[in-house]
């Protein structure tokens, strides 16, 4: 008995030693990567797509990374606290995924020079802070074409969140796309001052429909407007992720963000030490932007037009913001043939000529 017990003890000891040794060999601890989301990962829109990126990172690197995410982080001072906390907990790469996290991210990045930061949709970089964005406006231009072709009333409804450049540029691109197939197209815009409030988004969609629009487009994050369009038997365009499930008949297409590739490449860069700051702005050509399948309301000629425009945009033969283009007040901001520079696009704070209503400041 004693022998056996001693044997057992010795074996356990040896096993513990072996575990300890192998532990010592694989000493590099996993890279801690933190994600900060503005909405819930279950929004089936914006934050959902970013979370798909996190899952892709996990799948790609397995136990070489340890991921954390914080959802429903309000834009503003709270965000700074959350980002700071992630940094102080030893996260070496922190990805913040909403425009309103820009200044908090910049502040925290200055405080933790050995932590790498990635801010999505912003424009402020630092040595340890890179930015990336998707050329959503390319998708919006295509959606505008489809919307104008499908509209019988000639009026497209648009639910805006906040009048920041990203959203304003999307509205302008939508209008230009729509105008390219119907010069008389009208755009009705309602700002709801929130990224995520399904009830209010549905209310806004209803208000638009009551005022005679038959297409609902949105730059908010919940599928409520698509769902409303389905019930009202009008059309909608999905935002950020494929929203077909919410409006199988109403959906024309969805503008789909795909962050997976970018996040995987940035985590890889941190792991192999090649990470450098930068500013990536990817569109159709990079796969960061895709269009969902066309819904039953899209006619064959509309499909052809949309496909052709998408093809030209992804090959770089066409830019949705190509002059001559005027601002709402009539002043020209792009001369004939001139393409809008990225830095001007990133700061766009005016409507193009033809859009009614004042842009909130």
């Amino acid at each position: 008995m004693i022998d056996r017990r001693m044997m057992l003890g010795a074996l356990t000891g040896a096993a513990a030693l072996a575990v300890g040794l192998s532990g010592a060999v694989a000493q590099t601890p996993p890279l801690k990567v933190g994600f900060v989301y503005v909405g819930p990962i279950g929004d089936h829109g914006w934050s959902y797509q970013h979370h798909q990126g996190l899952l892709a990172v996990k799948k790609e690197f397995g136990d070489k990374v340890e991921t954390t995410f914080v959802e429903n982080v309000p834009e503003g001072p709270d965000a700074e606290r959350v980002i700071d906390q992630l940094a102080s907990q030893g996260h070496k790469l922190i990805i913040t995924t909403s425009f309103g996290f820009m200044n908090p991210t910049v502040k925290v990045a200055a405080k933790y020079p050995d932590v790498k930061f990635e801010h999505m949709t912003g424009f402020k970089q630092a040595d340890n802070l890179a930015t990336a964005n998707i050329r959503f406006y390319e998708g919006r231009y295509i959606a505008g074409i489809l919307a104008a072709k499908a509209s019988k009333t000639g009026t497209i409804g648009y639910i805006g969140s906040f009048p920041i450049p990203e959203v304003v540029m999307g509205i302008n691109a939508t209008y230009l796309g729509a105008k390219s197939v119907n010069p008389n197209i009208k755009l009705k815009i309602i700002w709801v001052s929130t990224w995520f409030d399904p009830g209010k988004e549905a209310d806004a969609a209803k208000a638009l429909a009551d005022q005679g629009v038959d297409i609902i487009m949105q730059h908010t994050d919940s599928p409520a407007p698509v769902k409303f369009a389905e019930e009202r038997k009008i059309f909608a365009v999905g935002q950020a992720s494929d929203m077909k499930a919410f409006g199988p008949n109403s959906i024309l297409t969805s503008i789909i963000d795909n962050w997976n590739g970018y996040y995987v490449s940035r985590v890889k860069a941190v792991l192999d030490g090649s990470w450098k700051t930068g500013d990536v702005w990817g569109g159709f050509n990079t796969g960061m932007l895709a269009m969902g399948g066309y819904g039953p309301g899209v006619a064959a000629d509309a499909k052809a037009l949309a496909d052709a425009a998408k093809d030209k945009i992804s090959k770089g033969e066409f830019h949705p913001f190509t002059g001559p283009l005027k601002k709402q007040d009539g002043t020209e901001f792009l001369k004939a043939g001139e393409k809008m520079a990225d830095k001007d696009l990133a700061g766009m704070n005016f409507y193009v000529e033809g859009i009614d209503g004042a842009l909130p400041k």
Partner: protein
Amino acid sequence: MSMDLIVGILAGLLVAATPLILAALGELVVEKSGVLNLGVEGMMVIGAFAGFAAKVLTGSYLLAFPAAIFAGMLMGLLFGLLTQILLSNQVASGLALTLFGLGLSALFGAGWTGLTAGAFPRLNALGLPGSLAAGLDVLILLTLALVVATQYVLTRTRTGLILRAVGENHDAAHAIGYPVVAVRMLALAFGGGMAGLGGAYLSLVQTPFWVERMTAGRGWIALALVVFSAWRPFRLLAGALLFGGITILQLHSQGFGLKVDAQVLAMLPYLATLAVLVFMSRSRGAGNAAGRLRAPQSLGKVFTSTT
């Protein structure tokens, strides 16, 4: 402005106000019994999910709404267990209930987003004519009836009298033999059920789908409405209609291209609520120390039986 549009605005206003009225009416009764339950948001979102899930599973609204009410009641009773029997702090427990409800519904609801519960029939499906009937539903009518019923029960019945007695002075109510804790538990169950129904209205009628956190702060607005109403059901109705009305009108005015900043318009409902609050508390009558905003005197206080 065409007739259809006016009707559309009116219907939109009632739809936007209904979940607020339901949840706030429940909380009003709870506060009248002397309990402050800050967990309305949590109870609403649980109701939103429970109602949606029950509809998807059974296909029946007649089961879905009771399921939402039941789930809300359980939440209300959980709060009662914590604060009335275990005597924990009401403010902290209420905040915890909100966080718990949001978390629990997100956990259970993770796989349910994207499922469809169908469109809730409007009044025109029952054979009522007119475009207003096409925008209204039977729950809106039920909600209005509940406001009247609550007012009646609170002011005209013995049940209401006991409830108010417990809320005004629980020691005195206890001394003359009323079961304070039992009355409050019943009030909490009612409040939870109403919040659950309000949440289900959001997920089954207004949007109609389920997504986590879809109540988006409506529970907090309901709490504010109770104070705004000075604990009176009809004033609560007026407040909810005002709030819903300004919300819908500001959306419409943007559609018409009114040159007012969207942020200002979005702020209007809250601004109006504040203005009315200030107005009402300013005009307090002499000899009535707390003025017209007279809260139930035992509101939020811990009751321990001394006998």
